């Protein structure tokens, strides 16, 4: 885990244009993710945490529009504003550098295609070159090996399988050079000529099975051929995670991946994610409403309320020393055995006509005059700990 910042969201404004009015879903949201860490984004339903995740991939659903701010991605030292990029660039980022997994695994998978098909699709899209190179290398190696004289017939036969014909090799090299080549695509569909495609598919399938095995799925070859409705919730979510990680992205956005699962399965998935993080070193942005999960999984946490990030800081720091009144109230409300059940008074304000000033002002026990009129700055209360409150 480094101190290098990977992703920065600066003053992001997002509005949904609906019949009932303009919903100010995100209001000058500021947060950043450091490379290699797990950032938790926590808040109630409707506070904008999921939509923030979607914005990072510039995939905001239709009545929504990003109205202002920057989303900066650190690419090998250079900062790029994702909001100003062309679609082709973004498509390269999606799935490849930043990946996303979703809340309901069964609906995130297309019911009419196998698991292998869907994971393989991502691999084919982003790692085609690598796959082609692998096949060519296997061919070279096989050719080298065949020159030896001490091979049994069985070994010889096996190696011969890896040898490419001239046409196949030409096709693969063509794909390496022109990834979106139409000629190659069409040739891949014609029965006799498409042997190169079949090899590619086999290679991709190998990779898919490897991914599924990494996800601790038993009998991955069989699971790969299954359809989403045949999988249990936990398996499906593992498949979705495999889909997210298959292209080795630098960052994974996890949008409440365990909310729809049973508690026991939840634990399994959380453990899996932790282990995968150790193995792959992925930066994770974990969106959830469960403070317990945050405590378990995250290094830093961003607390969101009504479209604002109200507090941002290290997990221990925030749990030990919550600064924002909302965070304080949230932590007090965590049910404890034997203690009385507490809740925060009042309701989340409507985002169509959000309150002026601080959006928490009608429920905040420390509300002052200032809170009703001006919006607080995202001040630095301590090193690495920001708060959106007039108290600081």
């Amino acid at each position, binding site marked *: 885990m480094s101190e290098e910042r990977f992703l920065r969201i600066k003053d992001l404004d997002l509005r949904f244009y*609906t*019949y009932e009015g303009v919903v100010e879903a995100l209001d000058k949201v500021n947060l950043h993710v450091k490379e290699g860490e797990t950032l938790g984004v926590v808040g109630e339903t409707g506070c904008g945490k999921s939509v923030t995740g979607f914005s990072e991939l510039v995939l905001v659903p*239709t*009545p929504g529009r990003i109205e202002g701010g920057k989303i900066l991605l650190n690419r090998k030292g250079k900062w790029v504003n994702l909001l100003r990029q062309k679609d082709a660039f973004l498509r390269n980022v999606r799935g490849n550098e930043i990946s996303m997994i979703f809340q309901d695994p069964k609906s995130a998978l297309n019911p009419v295609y196998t698991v292998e098909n869907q994971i393989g699709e991502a691999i084919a899209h982003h790692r085609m070159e690598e796959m082609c190179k692998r096949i060519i290398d296997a061919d070279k190696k096989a050719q080298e090996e065949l020159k030896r004289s001490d091979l049994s017939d069985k070994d010889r036969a096996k190696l011969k399988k890896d040898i490419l014909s001239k046409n196949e090799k030409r096709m693969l090299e063509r794909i390496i050079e022109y990834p979106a080549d139409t000629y190659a695509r069409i040739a891949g569909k014609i029965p006799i000529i498409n042997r190169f495609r079949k090899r590619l598919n086999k290679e991709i399938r190998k990779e898919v099975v490897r991914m599924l095995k990494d996800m601790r799925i038993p009998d991955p070859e069989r699971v790969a051929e299954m359809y989403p409705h045949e999988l249990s919730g936990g398996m499906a979510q593992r498949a979705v995670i495999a889909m997210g990680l298959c292209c080795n992205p630098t960052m994974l956005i996890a949008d409440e991946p365990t909310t729809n699962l049973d508690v026991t399965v939840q634990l399994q998935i959380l453990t899996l994610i932790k282990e995968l993080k150790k193995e792959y070193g992925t930066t994770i942005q974990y969106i959830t409403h469960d403070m317990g999960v945050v405590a378990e999984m995250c290094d830093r946490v961003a607390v969101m309320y009504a479209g604002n990030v109200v507090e941002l800081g290290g997990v221990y720091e925030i749990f030990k020393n919550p600064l924002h009144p909302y965070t304080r109230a949230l932590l007090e409300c965590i049910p404890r055995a034997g203690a009385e059940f507490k809740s925060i008074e009042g309701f989340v304000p409507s985002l169509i006509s959000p309150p002026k000033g601080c959006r928490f002002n009608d429920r905040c026990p420390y509300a002052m005059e200032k809170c009703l009129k001006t919006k607080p700055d995202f001040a630095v209360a301590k090193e690495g700990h920001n708060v959106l409150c007039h108290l600081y």
Partner: protein
Amino acid sequence: MVEERPFGTTLLALFQAVTGVIELNLGILMLTIGNPLPTVFPSINTYWVGLLMIVLGVISLFLGRTLWAGGASNWLLAISLTLIDVTIRIMLPVTYGTSWIAFAATLELDIVVLYYLTRPSTTPFFGGDGIRSVLSKFKIEMEPRMKEVRFTLRLVRKSYLSIVGASIIVFYLLVALLAPFLADPTNSLQQTGDPNMMWKDIELQATVSLEPQGPSAAHPFGTIQNQYDMYYGCIWGARSALRVGLYVAGGSMLIGLLIGIFASYYGGWIDEALMRFTDIIFAFPGLILAMTLVVVLVPMGINRLDAVMFALTIVGWPGYARLIRGEILRIKNEDYIEAAKSVGCSDLRVITKHILPNSIYPILIVFTLDIGTVVLGAAALSFLGLGAPPGYADWGQIIAFSVNWIYGSPSNPFAKWHTFVIPGLFISLFVMGWNLLGDALRDILDPTMRRK
């Protein structure tokens, strides 16, 4: 807060119940053996009047029950039912020429009911501290619904296709209503006694020939063979089309809804049996089944147009039955139904209060589209010679006449274009209006697409 039932209300409830039973029986008698009371119902169309009598009977029975039970929501229900009742009772003499006297008595009963419902002495029985509070409670209850309706109307206004559709429909409604003024029926009445039959220009018949003549001053749309005036046919054809469309679509909707609700309410083998029956009727392509029914019914002596309407109704109801049943089953499984049941809602209440309001949209859409389909079907049957009798002012019938003239004369193939182009445009525009509206409504009322 709910008081004893006032004596007046008890009387009215009983009266309504008795009237309901009488009317129900009259209606059933009328449908099965024919006109039992020729003095009350001189020369009427027993089929339709019988049906309406049954409807009136059911409404009266319901009204009786509502008056008996009391309660704020029943108060509103009673008023609505009475108003519907009044409408039908006025409509019967107007359209079917039934005697005013018989209906005047029951009309008065309705007026007494309305009077009673608005009296201060009855309001405690119906719950609430007066009519004003009930009305305001009603308003609050309906506010979210009204908001949705306003939203729908706004979307309707925005979608220009639905505006076009609605305007076309309004246009035809006006034409149909004003038909006697737009196309004078005196000639028809003179010749055949039925304003729905087109009149022949006998002079032209004698002087020129029986061949269709093009548009002229005397005949704005020209004439078709035997010198029927096509303008008259097209204008009065609007009446015929609206009548056929609304009655058949309405009738099949009512029957389909009743059967569908009945089947899904009771479930079990009743449901299975009714659904098999629906499947069987579905196994026959619509027009072909209609054709068969007409061919069987007409030789039995049933009026041709009535046979067509009856046949199309039979062909149409399974669609509605399946639709409402599908909706009911879908909604039945939703969580809020379980919630309602868990607080003790009876099944009927669940159906009327929760399921029906949510399932009404698809039915509305199918209804608007169905009118177009029905009119096209009736036109097709007329074209095949099975529908309206020759000379009737029905668009399909006019086109049937024109088949002989599509090739015009050897010199000018388009000589008789007016014989088929004009009535065809009338039909197409009519059906298009309903289709546009139904289509636009479909997009507007689809809950998943509403808020995009």
